[in-house]
């Protein structure tokens, strides 16, 4: 208790306003924390795998999200519990680092916690459990490297990449046309990839969505789409061989940063000011025209007069283009972003083969396509779909697929999916456990059991008998010494994941294990929870 007695036997209080705080200590604290972590994992468990279900989330503003992406579910959940927040963080870091496997990592952490609870009940000290887990995860990590395979692909043979992306997409709602989406994702990544350096800058891939049409209409555009229209309705809607001036200065009179006043007190001054103003507009537009631009893309707005002058000089213009889009356009067209009219020179113009405005549906929505760019290293994936939620979910799925393709380009090792890697790790860890003297042995075995939970959840979600299927697959792996046996989620008829073409990236799996172990270790080490009670 946070109550101590001084030398006169009077009690004094250590924690401020103690009575208004709730406090949990020792085993109770650990158990509560574990229960919270498990609760989060339980929510996500049913979303795992190709037959996983979706969650519907209603935000505080009443917007609906339907998804089965672990990171998104957890992020949108209004979580209050501290430990649950840790799990949310866990999923998020997997998302940032790898982009895929966000559900798996939470399920794994949940299973580890569940096993830890049993060990705690047996009286094993939490730190020993944590250490055991650490050892086990190292074994598993190495084992994964051992069973991983190198995947050979190049710009012409993209089939392996597509297959891996399809594995990622098959658990999403878009699995109806996973093949075409996977192809789009791979093409997009290859377009921006730097194969020499094995690096991919995903910022160069823009994912844009528009409701309407159907999922099959989703397309990859080698160029940029901007959700804007020409500033003047009568400007040309299509420009061949455009030379683009990319401006971050408004077509408006200058606004000096220093405070100033222009006092007008005579009629002459009034007149000169007026002429100045006209000349100013004229100069701006003329400057653009002089350097040979045939399209102006501007981050800011235009004054009516400037707009007309642009129109008049036959210089189409787009206004209010966002900063990110502006950068992408600059990259794609090889132009430079120009902050001042004075600095506009012909070399700084971007080039694009075709710029056109396209209208959609019955509303007045228009978008500008910038295609055949000088430097086609920026691409856009344009998603169509029946409703807003569908588009959003497709965006998330595409993002996952892009991440997977990127990871493969960085490191082309893969492991097989369908829970086969986990089962194989489980066997390896189990076998290694006996070599460790001491209490850790139990923790290592528990880790092996926890590994089984991912394939078990897969089997459950696919409507198979979980225990029966898992034990069958496990024995098959040991008997045939074949680490590629997994759960046959889609009822194809074979357990061999090589034949089913179900792959995951090696780094993704390794990251999952490391992150899950780390978070579990952290949770196990907590033995005191102090929280302010309700006010």
């Amino acid at each position: 208790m946070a109550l101590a007695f001084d030398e006169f036997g009077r009690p004094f209080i250590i924690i401020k306003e103690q009575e208004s705080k709730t406090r949990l200590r020792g085993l109770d604290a650990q158990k509560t924390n574990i229960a919270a972590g498990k609760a989060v994992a339980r929510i996500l468990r049913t979303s795992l795998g190709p037959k996983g279900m979706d969650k519907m989330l209603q935000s505080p503003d009443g917007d609906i999200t339907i998804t089965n992406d672990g990171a998104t579910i957890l992020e949108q959940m209004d979580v209050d519990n501290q430990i649950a927040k840790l799990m949310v963080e866990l999923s998020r870091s997997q998302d940032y680092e790898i982009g895929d496997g966000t559900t798996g990592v939470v399920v794994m952490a949940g299973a580890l916690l569940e096993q830890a609870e049993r060990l705690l009940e047996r009286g094993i000290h939490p730190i020993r459990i944590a250490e055991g887990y650490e050892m086990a995860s190292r074994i598993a990590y190495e084992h994964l490297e051992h069973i991983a395979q190198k995947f050979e692909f190049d710009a012409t043979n993209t089939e392996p990449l597509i297959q891996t992306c399809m594995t990622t997409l098959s658990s999403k709602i878009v699995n109806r046309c996973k093949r075409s989406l996977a192809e789009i994702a791979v093409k997009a990544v290859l377009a921006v990839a730097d194969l020499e350096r094995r690096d991919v800058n995903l910022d160069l891939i823009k994912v844009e969505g528009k409701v309407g049409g159907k999922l099959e209409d989703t397309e990859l555009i080698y160029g940029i789409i901007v959700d804007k229209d020409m500033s003047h309705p009568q400007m040309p809607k299509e420009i061949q061989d455009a030379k683009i001036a990319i401006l971050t200065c408004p077509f408006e009179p200058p606004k000096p940063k220093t405070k100033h006043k222009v006092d007008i007190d005579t009629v002459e001054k009034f007149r000169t000011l007026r002429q100045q103003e006209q000349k100013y507009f004229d100069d701006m537009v003329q400057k653009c025209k002089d350097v040979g631009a045939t399209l102006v893309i501007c981050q800011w707005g235009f004054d009516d007069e400037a707009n007309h002058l642009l129109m008049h000089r036959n210089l189409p213009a787009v206004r209010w283009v966002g900063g990110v889009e502006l950068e992408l356009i600059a990259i794609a067209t090889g132009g430079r972003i120009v902050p001042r009219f004075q600095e506009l020179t012909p070399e700084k113009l971007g080039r694009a083969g075709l710029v056109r405005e396209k209208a959609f549906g019955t509303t007045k929505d228009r978008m500008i396509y910038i295609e055949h760019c000088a430097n086609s290293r920026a691409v856009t994936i344009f998603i169509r779909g029946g409703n807003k939620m569908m588009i959003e979910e497709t965006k998330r799925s595409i993002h996952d697929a892009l991440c997977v393709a990127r990871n493969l380009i960085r490191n082309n090792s893969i492991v097989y999916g369908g829970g086969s890697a986990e089962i194989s790790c489980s066997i390896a860890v189990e076998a290694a456990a006996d070599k460790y003297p001491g209490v850790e042995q139990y923790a290592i075995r528990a880790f092996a059991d926890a590994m089984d939970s991912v394939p078990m959840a897969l089997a459950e979600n696919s409507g198979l008998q979980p225990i029966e299927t898992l034990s069958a697959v496990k024995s098959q792996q040991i008997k045939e010494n074949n680490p590629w046996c997994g759960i046959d989620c889609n009822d194809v008829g074979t357990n061999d994941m090589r034949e089913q073409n179900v792959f995951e990236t090696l780094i993704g799996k390794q990251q999952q294990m490391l992150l899950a172990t780390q978070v579990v270790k952290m949770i196990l080490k907590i033995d005191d929870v102090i929280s302010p009670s309700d006010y």
Partner: protein
Amino acid sequence: MAVERLFKDEATEEKGERARMASFVGAMAIADLVKTTLGPKGMDKILQSTGRGRSVTVTNDGATILKSLHIDNPAAKVLVDISKVQDDEVGDGTTSVVVLAGELLREAEKLVNAKIHPMTIISGYRVAAECARNALLEKVVDNKQDAEKFKSDLMKIAMTTLSSKILSQDKEHFAKLAVDAVMRLKGSTNLEAIQIIKKPGGSLKDSFLDEGFILDKKIGIGQPKRIENAKILVANTAMDTDKVKIYGARVRVDSMSKVAEIEGAEKEKMREKVQKIIAHGINCFVNRQLIYNFPEELFADAGVLAIEHADFDGIERLALVTGGEIASTFDNPESVKLGQCKLIEEIMIGEDKLIHFSGCEMGQACTIVLRGASSHVLDEAERSLHDALCVLSQTVNDSRVLFGGGWPEMVMAKAVDELARKTPGKKSHAIEAFSRALLAIPTIIADNAGLDSAELVSQLRAEHHEEGSAAGIDVISGSVGDMAELGISEAFKVKQAVLLSATEAAEMILRVDEIITCAPRRREDRM
């Protein structure tokens, strides 16, 4: 040990069966709500807004009804969303899409209760939807080559669309209006070129299509009321006091006489501007912004018709129609393209004076003037006409046509049924359910018309057993009729969009096994 609070206060979580039930119930409630508006004998709904004025809307347009609802159920919101997308994308079929999605979920619920896994249902629905689409594709009629037939197709589609709306009494009249208007567009889907002006008074029959352009504005006083061979300058410029745009400029004077001087200079400036405008050799000037009295007077002196404060759409449309460009500076009169039209005159519709531009250069644009007893009728008429125009403009681009009156649903249901018989496994239940859901649409149409739906639908099914039947529900006579003879047609694009988005939405809702609702954001009391 139970976790006390995983979520924040008031956030709720529903799982498994309960979540599924909540979404089924919500979606079906929405579908049932709009169900009664389906078909030619569908009923209307009154919507009263909670905003100021408690304005009332009477409508039978699914999208409008759903848009105005305040919905709490998340699944219901999905349905509202698909209806909105349908409206944006093809313009019509907004009710059908919701009803079909609702029926699909109703059937799915039965299957779930019979212990079939949602994933199995989804895969069945997918196969079925694909099969239904192919069945429709086989039966489409495309009359694009034959201009005469194509026009009659358009007429039929317009009449079918309008027959379920308030305009059904005069559907021929309005169908003709809509077809004429769309034909003028010559293939573009730019509905902006069709202007709809609503003027209360008269009857719906008095509505007419005007070849020219009508601007809902008055002509300035003392200016010519009628101009032949008009040269029009369309502008967007300030005609009040021309502000100095350079930042920080301000007028500071130290004596009264200087004020007068500056004022004089200002007037001079405006006069110059007007002179420049007149120097374009125009006799009509239309500005988006206000024109103050002083410049107006100058215009009147020069015999130029000046129209002020035309709204933005009006300006754009006028520029489109007359072929002029919207000008904001006036220094180069020789290079500004002027708009032209044969005649500008002031006309009276009801009690209002309007400006009528006729004999315009570009034949694309036109104006439909709607007349009707009350503003509610006019609003609804506008919505109906908008639906018809949307469908027609989409059909012009994709000229594939189907019969109406429940015929497409019967064709799809038949094909899907056959597929179900051929499919082994649990999936076939789902496929069968899909066909039942499709049949619900003709059933509802018949029910809404007060007919014996069970009898009619079974008769229809028998008719459709034969290949190439064109049987559908003839709501007027209350029997099964030949849709080809009755001339009831629908656009393929609309039907396809209904089928695909309804299946997509149903699939989406079926996949959900947990609903997490965050605590609603508290509005701060600003009172």
